[in-house]
């Protein structure tokens, strides 16, 4: 019979809440948001590097699904924080696609290419035009999943 030990652990950060010192939650959130905004230029530059790397990976070897997945993951994170919602969703779809393909030991160069094209279009597109593109990606993903 295995032994199970249960105990109560109080994290140190528990004692850091509701102190008279410090800042209100609203102030903390405003400062955090300001810091994200302060990184806008660097983050969008990193986003473009990740997009370029994803394109190169997809062109050079559509079977390099780990590389595509990693680059698409970076795009999800950076696009979403800076209001590029459509781009973030397309990148999430590429993560899904790469994950589905590698789980099944498959490749699908056409589906990868469609996603990369969508990322390129959505980088500078208004989110209003994103809906039909995202619908198209959804249809591609559904076909790949079978």
């Amino acid at each position, binding site marked *: 019979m295995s032994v199970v030990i249960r105990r109560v652990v109080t994290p140190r*950060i528990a004692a*850091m809440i509701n102190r008279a010192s410090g800042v*209100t939650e609203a102030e903390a959130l405003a400062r955090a948001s300001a810091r994200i905004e302060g990184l806008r230029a660097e983050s969008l530059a990193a986003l473009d590097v990740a997009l370029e790397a994803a394109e190169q990976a997809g062109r050079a070897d559509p079977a390099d699904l780990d590389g595509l997945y990693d680059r698409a993951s970076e795009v999800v994170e950076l696009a979403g924080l800076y209001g590029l919602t459509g781009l973030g969703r397309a990148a999430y779809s590429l993560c899904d696609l790469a994950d589905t393909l590698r789980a099944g030991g498959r490749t699908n160069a056409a589906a990868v290419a469609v996603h990369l094209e969508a990322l390129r279009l959505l980088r500078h597109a208004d989110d209003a035009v994103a809906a039909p593109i995202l619908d198209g990606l959804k249809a591609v993903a559904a076909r790949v999943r079978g």
Partner: protein
Amino acid sequence: MVVRRVDFEQAKALVVCSSQAGRDLMAQVLFGLGFGTVARCDSAGTAQAHCAAHLVDLVLCDGELPGTDGYDLIAWLRRSRLEPNSVAPVIMLSAHTPPSKVGKARDCGANFVVAKPVAPGVLLDRILWIAKEARPYITCKAYVGPERRFAEHGPASGERRQDRLAVAGLNEEAAA
């Protein structure tokens, strides 16, 4: 309405993420929330060395790391006996959150999974939740970490996809 104050000036956080942009963003969010110290590591190996040498009060860890991934890193931390670091709150971050990954995060001993992009409000909600939750800490042969079956499933506000998945996973486990 109660206005809570937070004072994380003495808190030491660790961000583990392979992408520099991701590390910088998470570190800046934590500094903005008031954390006094934020260490940044780009791999499981450097994070292990950091945990062995420095106090850590909160870990933000990306699930996808080169080599040893974030889930294995947290499983290692939980079994490391490096107290108090081994019982420190852990929030797993993931840009892609299929149910399989939420399950991996739960089983490695993380407290929460948060989907990227991580909005400051969502992160602060999770930190406050972890600080006040009374979830027992379990040590047994198969698992070390916060109890995986718990009655309350997290902050009411800002519920997102990964939370619903996490709850679904926990309910499945409870029913098993």
